[in-house]
């Protein structure tokens, strides 16, 4: 996989490139460039998913892999599309402003929107990590049909998401209580107020409110109020959230590969979008502690998908 660091692979690749150049003479460089930032399991998994999804149609040489700090705009003239994986890669490629269309993956909407705007005529799109509020509310309906109230602890970076929650709530027959906090010290008071009513607390991707230091006390407080917390990653479930709906890197990779394929087929870059596929994780211990009967997470996910397909058929 990592041919830059593997000399035998590199030699083999050079031989292949010479063969290709003499036989087809059609292309002289990779047509898809993958830019990665900090190397971690999630990114590797994403890169792997994109590759394996593209390989049946593309030669291995058509997919280039570059690390963010090595990326320069002019080095990949033949590339048809640049796919970034992770926030660092998105930031590095955004700063170079390459001519090709850029697809950002594995980043939040908040981060994407904070990037400087692209030049006119330059195509840019993204697949966010954030799950759409509607899907989250659907999860609530699917998992805990008895619950009618949603509690939201909103920080300075999650006001937009909160608005979407509030907007989508009526169609799920849910009521949304919102508590606004500007700093961590206000969390307890806000939670106390918020959780006076029986509700389900949703964690929002806002590091000012939900971070490694605050999550324990938030979980403790919600537990004292016997309020379940729904997170947005498996880590939340491990930390003590009841449920989490999330997309795996592989799922996002596959979605990215589909977009690449369509771009290579000559179609335009689609607009930024939420992940299409997702999974649900549950913490049965927490459920038992709170006295909640939960279905299997797979069934819950299935129910959410069914509702999404029912309302919004796949294009």
């Amino acid at each position, binding site marked *: 996989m990592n041919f830059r660091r593997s000399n035998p692979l590199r030699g083999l690749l050079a031989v292949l490139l010479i063969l290709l150049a003499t036989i087809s003479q059609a292309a002289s460089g990779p047509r898809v460039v993958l830019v990665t930032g900090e190397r971690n399991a999630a990114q590797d998994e994403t890169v792997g998913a994109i590759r394996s999804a593209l390989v049946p149609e593309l030669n291995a040489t058509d997919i280039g892999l570059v690390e963010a700090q090595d990326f320069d705009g002019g080095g990949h003239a033949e590339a048809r599309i640049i796919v970034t994986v992770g926030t660092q890669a998105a930031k590095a490629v955004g700063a170079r402003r390459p001519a090709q269309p850029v697809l950002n993956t594995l980043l939040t909407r908040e981060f994407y929107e904070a990037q400087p705007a692209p030049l006119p005529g330059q195509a840019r799109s993204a697949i966010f990590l954030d799950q759409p509020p509607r899907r989250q509310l659907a999860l609530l309906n699917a998992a805990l049909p008895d619950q009618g109230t949603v509690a939201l602890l909103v920080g300075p970076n999650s006001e937009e998401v909160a608005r979407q929650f509030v907007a989508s709530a009526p169609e799920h027959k849910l009521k949304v209580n919102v508590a606004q906090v500007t700093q961590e010290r206000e969390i*307890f008071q806000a939670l*106390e107020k918020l959780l006076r009513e029986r509700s389900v607390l949703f964690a929002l*991707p806002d*590091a000012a409110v939900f971070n490694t*230091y605050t999550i324990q*006390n938030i979980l*403790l407080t919600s537990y004292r109020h016997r309020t379940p917390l729904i997170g947005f*990653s498996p*880590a939340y479930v491990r*930390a003590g959230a009841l449920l989490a709906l999330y997309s795996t890197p592989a799922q996002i990779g596959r979605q990215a590969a589909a977009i690449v394929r369509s771009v290579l087929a000559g179609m335009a870059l689609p607009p930024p979008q939420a992940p299409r596929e997702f999974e649900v994780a549950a913490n049965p211990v927490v459920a038992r502690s709170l006295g909640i009967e939960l279905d299997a997470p797979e069934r819950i996910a299935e129910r959410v998908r069914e509702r999404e397909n029912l309302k919004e058929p796949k294009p």
Partner: protein
Amino acid sequence: MIDHWGIRARVMLAAVLPMLVLAIVLTAFYTRTRINDHEDAYRARGQAFGRQLAAASEYALFSGNRETLQRLSASMLAEEDLTGVLILAHNGEILARSGNLDTALPPPRGATTDEEVLSSRQTLRIIEPVLPSSVELDDGLSGIAVGVGGEARAPAVLGAVVVDISRARLDARLNELLLTSGLSIVLVLIGSLVLANYMSRSVTGPIRQVATAVERIGRGQFSARVPPVGGGTLRTLADGVNEMATQLASAHEDMSRQITEATAELRERKEQAERATLSKSRFLAAASHDLRQPMHALGLFIAELAQHQHPPQIRQLVERIAASAGAMENLLDSLLDISRLDADVVKPNVRPFALQPLLDRIAAEERPGADARDLELKARPTDAWISSDPVLFERILGNLVSNAVRYTRKGRVFVVCRRRGNRLRIEVRDNGIGIPPESQELIFQEFVQLHNPERARDKGLGLGLPIVRRLTNLLGHRLTLRSRPGKGSVFAVEVPIAAPMPEVERLEDRRPPGDLGGLSVALVDDDPLARTSMQSLLSSWGCNVIAAGDLDALTDSLRRERKQPELIISDFRLDGTRNGVDVIRSLRALHGSDIPAVLVTGDTGEDTLRLAQQQGLPLLHKPVRPARLRALLNRLPGAVE
């Protein structure tokens, strides 16, 4: 300082010092380590309390639950040694307080992110920040987990807990530790002293034995030996000392034997010498006595003979006989004087006396000789009194003057007195032939006559100056000689000056030489020859002599003739049990104690002299020269009326 230490002290020091140093170092190290351990444990305990309380109060601080915090702090106070607990909010507000906080320490200033440990004399204070515990949320989808940018954020401090722990128990434990350490050092010191004492005994013991033995040898106990002790150098030392003692003993023995032999030999020689001296003395004594008797008689007879009328031829003969007898008497006198002086029997009778009469007498005696040689003899008058024996001093000066007269052919002989401080220097000067320097010591030996190789009798016997030398030595007078050949000689005697005694002088001066006519003299002498001659002489002088061989005969004669003796002359050694002193005493008892008396003796023995001196009797030695007897009689008190 250590230079003056004995072996024992040195051994003690050598043994004790390292042990003591080691004990102190080890104990100090151990104590220090233990103290540090205690301190660390104490601090760790306090920190554990702080962390425990911080962890416990995290949620209560997060939720601002003062009741819970108060309960927590109160329950914390139940722990041993905790004196005060304080829980602060992130802004420094006091949320809970239990117990008493040490005021010696600065009050806690709000919450910090770092743990602090403060310490005062009584208290250890732990300030532990309360941080929210973190839960790992980063599962790779980091963009979501840590928000925008994904950079790590410092946790917001919830507050702080302050825990005061009393140091009392720690201090008590430390004190106990220090006490134990001190005690152990003292114990080690005592132990090492005892050990060192024991060790030094074993070291110094053999050396002491050696020292004792050496000391005994030093005191002369050569039999002292060092018992075989130890080995090595000690053994060598002991053997060396023993060897030395053996050598010393044998050397000492050799020397003692030699000294004994030498002493025995010396004693033998001394005894020989003493025997010889005794023989000589006996000979002299015998000679003097046995020679004197006939000489005495001869002199007296000649004197008497000379007083008779003789034809000129006979007179000349008598004169020659008298001269020969006089020379013989002189010779005998001088020999006897020398022998007496050598026998050390002459005891000087030192007293003050006027010098001038003595000078007059000598001048009178020598003048005939001087006139015969046509010499000018002068004695410069003096009023000095000197302290000496008058008889012996007269002999000294007389000898010197007669010597000068004899050896001066032409010119003069002066006797001059000069004061030298508290001494009087009496010089006898002549302008005679002089004495060469190399002979100036020789002339003081017996029978040496430089200018008389022919030994002419008129130049004396060569005994004058030896007698002078012996007498000045005996009296302690300084005798000097200054002379050059042809330039004459100066003999000088220095004598102490004495204070004048006028009345004695007057008494003696009052007695001019007078007529002895009609003087009644009692004479006792057992030798008929001597008695007859003396009687003849005295009779020729006009005395009435009653002579006898012993006291009884004399008293009979006196009674028969009804005479009262005015003068007693007695021989010292008489037949029978009585001697001259007894005779004089008896006669005085009969006829009056103030009768003048004269002892005459042929003895030169010391006993005779002493007896005469005890009785205050003048003593004349035989042969008595008529002139001397006459002079004595003239001087006797009551002899002149």
